[in-house]
């Protein structure tokens, strides 16, 4: 009996299948143990995902030379330029802290992605020219070996700005300055404007300036991802968390005029991880404030603006979030393929989006009816009351249009003079600012990143002199007013 059974097993097991293997492998895997074992083996095999100390992998490193707070386009640009301009590879450890990895409230990706040279401050024009050169050669700057090239989708359609009688002389002055700085901008009279763009109503337009080259719009997400990809490949660390505390030491000092000041130095940044209570103190040498619309809060954490008013210590960073709406509408009879980004006398702007007769545009509200900035809800009455009358007046074809969608985003609005802040704080010398660009931060990001990296590494600006954008202008009340804000 036993022999028979043995014979049967053997014959079923070996002889009947000859030298072929079974389909399920050598071990009968009915309870899934073998699959589990194989999975574990794959994990522990060299090159697998297992590491000896994996408990803190989600936390930022304990030490970093430079901590960049804010992983928007400015933050990543600073990280990229720091790694690129460092004297030897892998000498600076850079950490980028971003609160929201989905970028759902980030100004970078909610902007309309325009780039122009028509500014009223020469440094802004230089920054734009630098950025356009960067975007043109983006695949040489941001090439990562073995990754697909970036498609920035630049639309070189130009900006058209209109001016009324009272603003005409100022526009003429600005265009003269822009041309001297190197931008290709031309002035158009109302007749020339009508000839060039017959769909525009030139009533109450005295003068128009039109960017011939290097102006248009591009894909912000592509620039952000490109910078991020390149910076990560160069060894930048990043972490998804929020900076909740800046630990600093204070040294009282006396100036040459005998005033007592407190020089502060940030020693540690506490990064709180998303959706948990744990935080990691990161020892650092330099903190870069690139938090965009929320950089005012970060500056307060460092004690900037806390002190008697009128002193340098009591001068706060005048950057606050402002909500701006962008509407998308459909109008098949609207301006054709040649339509540039038009900025009306009233401040209303629009541009073509794609080929199907879609347009997007918006308008900055007046100081009195600034909307609440708690959430990103869109006020549709704003379009009906403030936007549409101006649009229909300027382009009669827009009398019949259909709003398709809308979104809102934040400007990191500098209430002092609507210009960026670049460089260190005089009393907290290891906090550097790269913020407050009031809506044109995206287009200036490559240039600003390079400028911050230069002043951090060399102590001076060498490509573009941005000393006019330093923090001390708030204390000395010297405005670098930007008049052309869209």
């Amino acid at each position, binding site marked *: 009996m036993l022999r028979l059974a043995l014979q049967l097993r053997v014959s079923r097991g070996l002889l009947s299948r000859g030298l072929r293997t079974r389909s399920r492998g050598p071990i009968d895997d009915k309870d899934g143990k073998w699959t589990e074992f194989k999975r574990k083996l794959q994990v522990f095999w060299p090159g697998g995902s297992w590491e000896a100390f994996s408990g803190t992998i989600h936390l930022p490193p304990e030490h970093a030379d430079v901590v960049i707070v804010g992983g928007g386009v400015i933050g990543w640009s600073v990280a990229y330029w720091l790694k690129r301009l460092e004297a030897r590879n892998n000498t600076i450890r850079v950490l980028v802290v971003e609160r929201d990895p989905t970028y759902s409230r980030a100004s970078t990706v909610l902007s309309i992605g325009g780039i122009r040279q028509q500014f009223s401050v020469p440094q802004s024009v230089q920054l734009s020219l630098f950025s356009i050169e960067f975007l043109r050669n983006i695949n040489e700057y941001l090439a990562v070996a073995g990754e697909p090239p970036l498609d920035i989708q630049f639309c070189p359609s130009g900006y058209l700005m209109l001016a009324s009688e009272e603003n005409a002389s100022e526009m003429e002055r600005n265009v003269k300055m822009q041309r001297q700085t190197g931008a290709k901008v031309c002035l158009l009279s109302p007749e020339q404007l009508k000839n060039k763009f017959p769909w525009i109503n030139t009533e109450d337009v005295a003068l128009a300036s039109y960017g011939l080259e290097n102006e248009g719009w591009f894909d912000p997400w592509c620039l952000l991802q490109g910078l991020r990809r390149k910076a990560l490949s160069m060894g930048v660390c990043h972490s998804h968390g929020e900076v909740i505390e800046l630990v600093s030491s204070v040294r009282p000092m006396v100036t040459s005029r005998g005033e007592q000041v407190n020089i502060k130095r940030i020693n540690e940044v506490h990064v709180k991880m998303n959706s948990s209570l744990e935080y990691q103190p990161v020892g650092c040498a330099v903190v870069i404030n690139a938090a965009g619309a929320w950089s005012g809060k970060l500056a307060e954490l460092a004690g900037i603006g806390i002190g008697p008013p009128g002193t340098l210590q009591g001068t706060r960073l005048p950057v606050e979030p402002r909500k701006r709406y962008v509407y998308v509408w459909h109008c098949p009879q609207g301006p054709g*393929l040649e339509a540039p980004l038009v900025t009306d006398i009233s401040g209303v702007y629009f541009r073509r989006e794609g080929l199907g007769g879609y347009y997007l545009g918006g308008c900055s509200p007046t100081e009195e009816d600034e909307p609440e900035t708690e959430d990103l809800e869109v006020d549709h009455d704003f379009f009906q009351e403030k936007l549409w009358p101006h649009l229909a007046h300027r382009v009669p074809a827009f009398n019949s249009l259909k709003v398709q969608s809308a979104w809102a985003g934040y400007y990191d609005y500098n209430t002092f003079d609507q210009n960026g802040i670049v460089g260190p704080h005089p009393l907290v010398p290891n906090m550097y600012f790269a913020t407050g660009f009031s809506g044109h931060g995206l287009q200036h990001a490559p240039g600003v990143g390079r400028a911050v990296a230069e002043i951090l590494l060399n102590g001076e600006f060498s490509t573009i002199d941005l000393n006019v954008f330093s923090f001390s202008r708030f204390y000395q009340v010297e405005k670098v007013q930007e008049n052309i804000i869209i």
Partner: protein
Amino acid sequence: MAAPKALLRAGHPTWWGGGTLRTLSSQSNFGQGLNPSYDLDPNPGRNPQQGLMGSMASRFYDLEQFREWISRFWSWNLYRKNKVFSYTLKHYGPSVAAAHFVLTHGGAVRFQDQEWLFPQDKNQFLWNNHHFQKLPLEEVDASGCVINYYGLENLVFLPSLRSLRLCGCPYVDDWCLGRLHSLGSSLQELSLAGCPKVTERGLACLHHLRSLRRLDISNLPAVSDKGLTQILVEEMLPNCEVVGIDYADRLKLLSEDQRRVEEKAAAAVPGAPGGLMPT
């Protein structure tokens, strides 16, 4: 036989062929483990690195560096070829400089009331350049040349250029088309056929070319909506003959069944003209 193979396969996918091969330097993160994936690639399952060099470069730092040097060399070489011919420009004027540039690249040029000059006539042309200094350059055929944005700088300041042919230039892109505005008053004929990088975004800024009579935009692989683009370009340039794209491109013919259903629906609406639905 069977067991060792199965064992070998057990550890195989993670370290040999699993997932997308990343470059080495994109993994280095100071002991932070792997970077989270940051894929711009629409189909990450496909390995973007082809060939032996690619697969070796994903494993060895020095080969990766070597690969980067090679790509850097090629882009440097392209910029070297596309420099402005400043010496010729300074001594012999813009038209001779432009002709020299185009002939060096293997294109052809024609001066006013002259025969076409081809690359093999370059030395003769340079020898007789005093002949040509006074003559305006009228036609340039730079088809298939490696001209990029910076090389175009040689051509855009010609005051009487009538015809420019850039067929099949691999580096002519939207940025180049944005550069052509300075030829607006003179250029009558432009051909961009077969440029792989030109898209509808660049074509939009051809409205600066006011005197354009003929525009060839056939065979542009990067233009997404070819028929619509053609219609919009024709609207934008009313005096210009736009050749190249068929209107019906990307439009599908209805099958017999679908057509019958449409006709039936049209007939059901009283007063509707056959086949067309009033909106």
